[in-house]
């Protein structure tokens, strides 16, 4: 309790009107806690953190915390973040997005930020639905489920965000759930410490929209299913595709070394000034 009081006093904005906008039982609050604990553990100064979001329930997260905060347009958080990071590389840039933000309207920016390996941390909270607008189908809504725009059931197949990030070249990809809060702290901490583009996918729930439409029960019931369906990366390696059907593979999916964009661009600057680099010979 003492520790959480310290974190609240240090990181939450005292001049911001609480309570927050999220529904009781929402997973975004758990993510906010995990994010603050991770930043505290890494030991970043508040002045050097820029927390950036897009649009949706998740996008309201930065307003509550005492960093440099930027609430951008829908799907474009990573583009603003790229500008911030490239213009001032000493800043630590963390981007919070929802599933609609990151892989629907902003899908193109996600794959290109990963491809460039700009040193950003992208935290994507995936609740499989557009919550703020009232429960419409998102690119991560599972096949056969109901939403307010798929009352006859969703006939599209869901994106797997972490696997998409791996394929696009992200150097760190981790997946957790809001039930596994401790794991989440660790994944976010690792992603922040990682030099390069890191992605943490956070499986969450929207019991007020998606849960209600699909009769999945309360927030507690939905979190229980996160617990029951979670399979660690290590365990998953021993299971076949059939056994993994509907499971959430949690842990570190990728952690590799690759030069970050800034280092590469320093080569451009050096060549622009007439220097001949060893690799050009």
């Amino acid at each position, binding site marked *: 309790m003492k520790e959480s009081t310290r974190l609240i006093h240090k990181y939450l904005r005292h001049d911001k009107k609480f309570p927050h906008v999220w529904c009781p039982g929402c997973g975004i609050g758990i993510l906010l806690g995990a994010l603050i604990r991770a930043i505290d553990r890494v030991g970043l100064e508040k002045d050097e953190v820029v927390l950036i979001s897009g649009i949706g329930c998740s996008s309201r997260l930065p307003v509550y915390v005492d960093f440099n905060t930027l*609430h951008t347009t829908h799907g474009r958080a990573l*583009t603003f973040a790229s500008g911030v990071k490239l213009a001032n590389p000493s800043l630590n840039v963390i981007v919070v997005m929802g599933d609609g933000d990151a892989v629907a309207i902003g899908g193109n920016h996600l794959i*290109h930020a990963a491809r460039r390996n700009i040193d950003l941390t992208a935290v994507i909270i995936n609740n499989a639905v557009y919550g703020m607008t009232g429960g419409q189908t998102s690119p991560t809504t599972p096949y056969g489920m109901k939403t307010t725009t798929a009352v006859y059931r969703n006939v599209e197949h869901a994106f797997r965000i972490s696997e998409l990030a791996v394929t696009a070249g992200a150097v760190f990809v981790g997946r957790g759930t809001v039930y596994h809060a401790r794991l989440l702290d660790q994944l976010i901490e690792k992603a922040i410490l990682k030099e390069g583009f890191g992605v943490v996918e956070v499986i969450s729930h929207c019991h007020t929209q998606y849960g209600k439409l699909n009769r999945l029960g309360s927030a507690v019931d939905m979190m229980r299913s996160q617990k029951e369906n979670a399979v660690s990366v290590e365990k998953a390696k021993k299971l076949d595709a059939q056994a993994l059907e509907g499971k959430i593979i949690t842990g570190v999916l990728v952690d590799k070394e690759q030069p970050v964009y800034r280092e590469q661009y320093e080569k451009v600057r050096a060549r622009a000034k007439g220097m001949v680099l060893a690799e050009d010979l």
Partner: protein
Amino acid sequence: MTGRQDSDTVRESKGREVLLQGNEAVAEGSLAAGCRFFAGYPITPATEISEVLSVKLPQLDGTFIQMEDEIASMGAIIGASLTGVKSMTATSGPGFSLMQENIGFACMAEVPCVVVNVMRGGPSTGLPTSPSQGDVMQARWGTHGDHSTIVLSPATVRECFDITVMAFNFSEKYRTPVIVLMDEIVGHMREKILLPPPEDVTVVDRLQPTVPPEWYIPYEDTPTGVPPMGVFGSGYRYHVTGLTHDVRGFPTQRPDEVDPLIRRLFRKITQHFDDIQVGKEFLTEDAQVVVIAYGSVARSAKRAVKEARAREIRAGLFQPITLWPFMRKTVERIATRAKTLIVPEMSMGQISREVKRVNEGRASVVTLNRVDGNLVTPDEILEKILEGTR
């Protein structure tokens, strides 16, 4: 620049003589103004701006990045500007359409940046390699919602340089995106010009807060209507959002907080019309027929006016450089004296609508519209001048 009668030919002795293209002059102007971040996406007829800056920015420890699209380019320059680095992007019609949402973000969050739109024929993919002036209204109203805007339009290569500097200065001074609206002819035209030495270029930087961070109120009203801008990483931590916000930057729906914000966003432009509105007048003082033209059409118009004068017709030219906010006072003054106003445009008439609105029946307004992808010629304008004096 107002009152300078003839600056097509540069007579200053100082500076570096160069043969430059309009787009290249924009790139040079941006660097002279202190631009150190450019994000863009290739598009005809604006690509040369990207190409030049991809070469020159890294030489100056600046950053050039080619983004995945124009939406991303606009987002990136806003992000860079929030760290205190002057930023620009350049595009043409289709890309300009894609940038609109984030241009609105820059208006609302008051982030200085410069957007160059080298106009080509439209709508849609249109005529990629031909000139047009069809985006004048889009430059004013392209992004959704009620907002003010600054749009500047050069007609010569030297003006491309000067006006890009001016665009950066206005964007820094008034914390607003500024649009440099060119047409394909101005962008691709080559002229010999004198590039002024750096010490002759006036550069304005944004006002930064001087109070201790805990006293800083990021969106507080000031006599100029422009609050000092804290820079990310400088200790002034605050919230930046596209949502309607209170003086601290936090989202609000309270009518007594929403109304003052929107009014201030307008006021910071409207109370500085004298500074922002720039134009050139050529022989307008005794003119019976005044041509109102901007961009490359102003060049044709000037020739037509000279030819009319040679025939002892009292013709003149008014070239608005600031297209928005529209130069109402100047046009009113001209319309009161002249019998006829001629507004040639490479569109079905966008500035001519404004001229008619401001004219209020004082003079007769004649439009000359060309939408076939070609420049309005001096002969066409001369013909209208002759008609206007009959």
